[in-house]
């Protein structure tokens, strides 16, 4: 039986798998980060969907978790992109296949 909640969960699962696709099959470091951001957004969507259609609780926990998750995702994106720039300065490449040494 498909209810609205099921449709939302399917959408967020599809978004998660699209992010997984971007993170696994792209070779540019920035796109892997984009994929990770998409996965985080899909998880947030799950939280909000369950807050809306789940059992009523005194506090809107789903919404609070989503807000904190957005803030943390932004921080992680900033640090990840800074690392991509720093790596580019050393190795002159952003293709993750070519970044296979630990030597600086």
């Amino acid at each position, binding site marked *: 039986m498909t209810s609205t909640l099921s449709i939302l969960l399917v959408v967020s699962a599809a978004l998660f798998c699209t992010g997984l696709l971007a993170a696994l099959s792209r070779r540019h470091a920035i796109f892997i980060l984009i994929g990770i951001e998409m996965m985080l*957004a899909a998880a947030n969507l799950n939280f909000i969907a369950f807050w809306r259609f789940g059992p009523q609780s005194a506090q809107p926990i789903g919404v*609070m978790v989503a807000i904190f998750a957005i803030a943390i995702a932004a921080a992680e994106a900033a640090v990840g992109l800074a690392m991509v720039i720093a790596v580019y300065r050393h190795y002159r490449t952003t293709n993750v296949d070519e970044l296979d040494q630990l030597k600086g």
Partner: protein
Amino acid sequence: MNIVALIILAIFTLAAALAAATLPKLMHAALSFAVAFVGVAAFYFLLGAEFVGLVQVFVYVGAVAVLVVFTILLTRTDAQKDRGFNWSGVLVAIAVFVGLLWAIFKTQSLAINLPKAEPLTVARIGELLMTSYVWPLQCVGVLLTAALIGALILVMEEKR
């Protein structure tokens, strides 16, 4: 809640997300990433969490997308295309999707259809942030400061 609006929005967001994951040209993919997040924010509006939707547009489209395009600019190589596409990633993604779909349709208790009683106001969220969630708020503040300082140190020019 309107099912038609939900479906249209879902198609739009997933199309933008797929474009972001598969377009070869970097800039186009980065810009469709921004569009996909606007779609997700529209989902939040439809579900009644307006504050989260606004924060999503503000943080993701206004900040993270700008960071991504700046980084693409600063790490330019001659050809602006992403070389190489790993097809095994597609298989893994499809497998995970099938697994998740099976899990969603197997669970019995997902037919809850009751709408919310009172709308969630920004005042309520602010009250909660300052009373029950004040320690997570402070921790996120410290985390953001650490991320700011860390990102700056990572990209600062080294003194020779």
